[in-house]
């Protein structure tokens, strides 16, 4: 389902390739698909609408880069906007000196407050500060026990109510205890609630006012649907939120709630919970979640890298040369170099969704080594030879090139022969989008990797040099065929 978004996007925007600018009209279909992707990721409807307006404003008038698939270009813009919207992130907790820093956690029932409290405590403890946990959840049965057990596991003191039934008093007592004992950080674990429970919201607001926490964090379940907006708004109205902790991101939830919550509250997501272990609280990185919300795997990062690293001017020059029907080994080399700038070939291919298998297959073939041999051969040629290899390179030149590149003369020959076929293919590629180009290149690569192909043959596995027996067999076959033809003509 996820992969299909990228493919349907590119077919929707296929017509735009290589020409003109992005306009509201020609993006409509593509943005519709982005909308569906966002809704499927549980981003709230109004947030999606507002977001798409922003993207449209950003993208309109943008020139469709000749070298990029417009679909990918649009996704690139969407992705960037997602990052802008969810960032920037400040992971520090702004500790106070000289008095205890009070952190308060609130959230819906079952969002993971108590677990997050423990995880946060562990994180702070690792930074060398002392922590006191305050069990202020007097609603759920055994919530206090749960925090006590976690406190024991962490070796962190837990302040429990001991018969007090007023959460405000418990929190106050906890902070007082921290002051007395010189503890650096106090974390208040409050009762979970349904956002529309006025009574409990009033209780939270009361804690906020009387205890005066330095930071208030909202704990949000990554699996939350459209309701994330309503609950985040209710909490934000009752309390002044400073940050959000998003939990249960270790599952396969796309986490669109993050976008909704940020949109509604304006406060950043600070941490994410990614597991049931107490260690599993990570800093939040908007770029990673943006890719996840779009459900496009790493294709987005591939686009980004491509945008960054492909030399636009160089590409343009090449386009023109290709269109004019010129393609030389020099161009081929440049093209390979550009591809290579993205990273090791295996990694680049592995980033494309659905190509993981190919990556594995190629891993054994040592693509990069083969590419180096190609570069070696091309580098050993004179400019004339590179421009017109088929016509110029004779036996003596071939021997010289092979010697210079440290390969067998046969390999030079193979490259030249292969180049003939390649040149026409490359000319056909002029004007193709980046994705198709990658595909073509990948075909080339698998040609290289395939020992039976004619390009670059490592010693030993030439696949062409036949054993005596095989030659004999082939000869026999040829003779047999000849006899049969003879017979047939006779008849």
């Amino acid at each position: 389902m996820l992969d299909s978004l990228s493919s349907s996007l590119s077919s929707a925007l296929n017509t735009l390739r290589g020409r003109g600018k992005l306009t509201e009209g020609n993006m409509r279909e593509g943005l519709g698909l982005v909308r569906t992707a966002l809704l499927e990721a549980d981003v709230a409807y109004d947030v999606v609408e507002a977001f798409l307006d922003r993207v449209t404003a950003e993208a309109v008038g943008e020139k469709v880069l000749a070298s990029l698939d417009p679909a990918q270009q649009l996704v690139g813009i969407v992705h960037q906007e997602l990052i802008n919207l969810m960032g920037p992130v400040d992971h520090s907790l702004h500790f106070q000196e000289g008095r205890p820093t009070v952190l308060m956690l609130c959230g819906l029932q079952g969002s993971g407050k108590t677990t997050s409290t423990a995880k946060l405590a562990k994180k702070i403890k690792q930074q060398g500060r002392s922590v006191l946990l305050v069990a202020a959840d007097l609603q759920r049965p055994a919530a206090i026990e749960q925090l006590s057990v976690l406190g024991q596991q962490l070796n962190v003191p837990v302040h429990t109510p001991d018969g007090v039934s007023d959460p405000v008093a418990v929190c106050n007592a906890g902070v007082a205890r921290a002051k007395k004992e010189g503890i650096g950080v106090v974390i208040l674990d409050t009762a979970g609630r349904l956002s529309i429970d006025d009574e409990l919201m009033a209780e939270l607001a009361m804690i906020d006012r009387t205890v005066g926490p330095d930071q208030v964090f909202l704990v949000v379940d990554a699996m939350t649907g459209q309701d994330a907006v309503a609950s985040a708004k209710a909490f934000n109205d009752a309390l002044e939120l400073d940050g959000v902790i998003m939990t249960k991101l270790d599952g396969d939830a796309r986490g669109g709630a993050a976008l909704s919550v940020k949109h509604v509250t304006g406060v950043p997501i600070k941490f994410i919970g990614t597991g049931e272990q107490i260690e599993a609280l990570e800093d939040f990185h908007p770029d990673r979640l943006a890719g996840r919300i779009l459900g496009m795997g790493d294709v987005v990062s591939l686009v980004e890298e491509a945008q960054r690293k492909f030399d636009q001017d160089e590409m343009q020059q090449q386009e023109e040369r290709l269109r004019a029907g010129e393609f030389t080994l020099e161009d081929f080399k440049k093209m390979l170099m550009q591809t290579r700038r993205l990273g090791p070939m295996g990694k680049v291919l592995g980033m494309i969704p659905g190509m993981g298998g190919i990556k594995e297959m190629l891993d054994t073939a040592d693509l990069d080594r083969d590419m180096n041999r190609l570069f070696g051969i091309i580098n050993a040629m004179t400019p004339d030879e590179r421009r017109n290899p088929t016509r110029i390179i004779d036996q003596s030149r071939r021997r010289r090139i092979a010697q210079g590149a440290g390969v067998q003369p046969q390999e030079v020959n193979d490259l030249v022969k292969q180049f003939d076929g390649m040149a026409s293919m490359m000319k056909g590629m002029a004007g193709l989008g980046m994705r198709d180009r990658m595909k073509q290149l990948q075909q080339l690569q698998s040609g290289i990797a395939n020992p039976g192909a004619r390009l670059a043959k490592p010693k030993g596995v030439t696949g062409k040099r036949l054993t005596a027996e095989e030659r004999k067999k082939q000869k026999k076959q040829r003779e047999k065929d000849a006899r049969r033809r003879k017979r047939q003509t006779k008849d």
Partner: protein
Amino acid sequence: MALFRFRGSDKPDPSKVDEAAKSGAPVDSTGSVSPEATADEAGGAGRLFDRFRAGLKKTVQVLNTDVRDLFKQEGRLVDESFLNDLRRALVRTDMGPTAAEEIVKDVYAKQRARVVDPESVLDSIRGTLSQRLDQTDAPLAAAATGPTVILVTGVNGSGKTTSIAKLANRFVKDGKRVVLGAGDTFRAAAVEQLSMWASRIGAEIVRSDQGADPASVAHRAVARALEGDFDICIIDTAGRLQTQSNLMQELGKIRRVIAKQIPEAPHEVLLVIDATAGQNALSQAKGFSEAASCTGVVLAKLDGSARGGVVVPVTETFKLPVKFVGLGEKADDLAVFDPKRYLEALLADSFCDSPA
């Protein structure tokens, strides 16, 4: 709009349906129940109804706008902007963009460019949705003889333990003897939480230390149910995400262990879904169905502002009927799911939200 609003006297009280379901009395599609099942329930019915109403008052308070906001504008045409509002209202129920889009298309096809007629628009939506939510009345399966074993699963924080308590409370009130298996041996104090509930509602509990093998707890709970001649045995499990394959396999093991003592058990495997959950609930239903062969859904926390519309695609895709809905934090706040009333409430609620 109340979730379990009654229009006149033709709609039966949900408690009656429920009692009937439990006692195995025939329940037809309109929810009418054979009289002998309802006779002893008449007293508690009014109270229960009041509580539903109170629970849903909160929802109405928050939404705080006219129920038919979408249709308020006189003489509005079924045009782009109306369809957008409709789409928004539908998506907000968490039914998913695909289902919403289909309904929008259906309304567009049938009523394009006409003046908006609230009833026919609602009818069209109702028709599509009830088709999707088509579930035959699904009372809890019961063992012919011996204890009925119910296994309860779900992701972390979906409301399993509370739902078990509510379920047990129902059975106890019904005069059944219930034993609980505290199978959440992973989360700190989960066993204590269930123990507290057990003592509150008067059910027996089989427990083990934190970190013990949940399958062993399940085994002992079933053994206890057999030996003590209990009617119902409900087994809790630790919350787990459907992507954690080793934990999902553990569910299969628990199932097998239970079946060793009673071959046809567990008679019910319930998946608890949080009403606030979004599209990920589909993945949950898939994962848990594959691992534990779920037989039904409990939609928990429906008393908030969330509408739990994701049960529409869940029921449609995985043929998992919704059996109960959780409506509050008290032990009594559990009702038998009625698709018709649920749809009525789903639409009512979504159409009283004004565009933000």
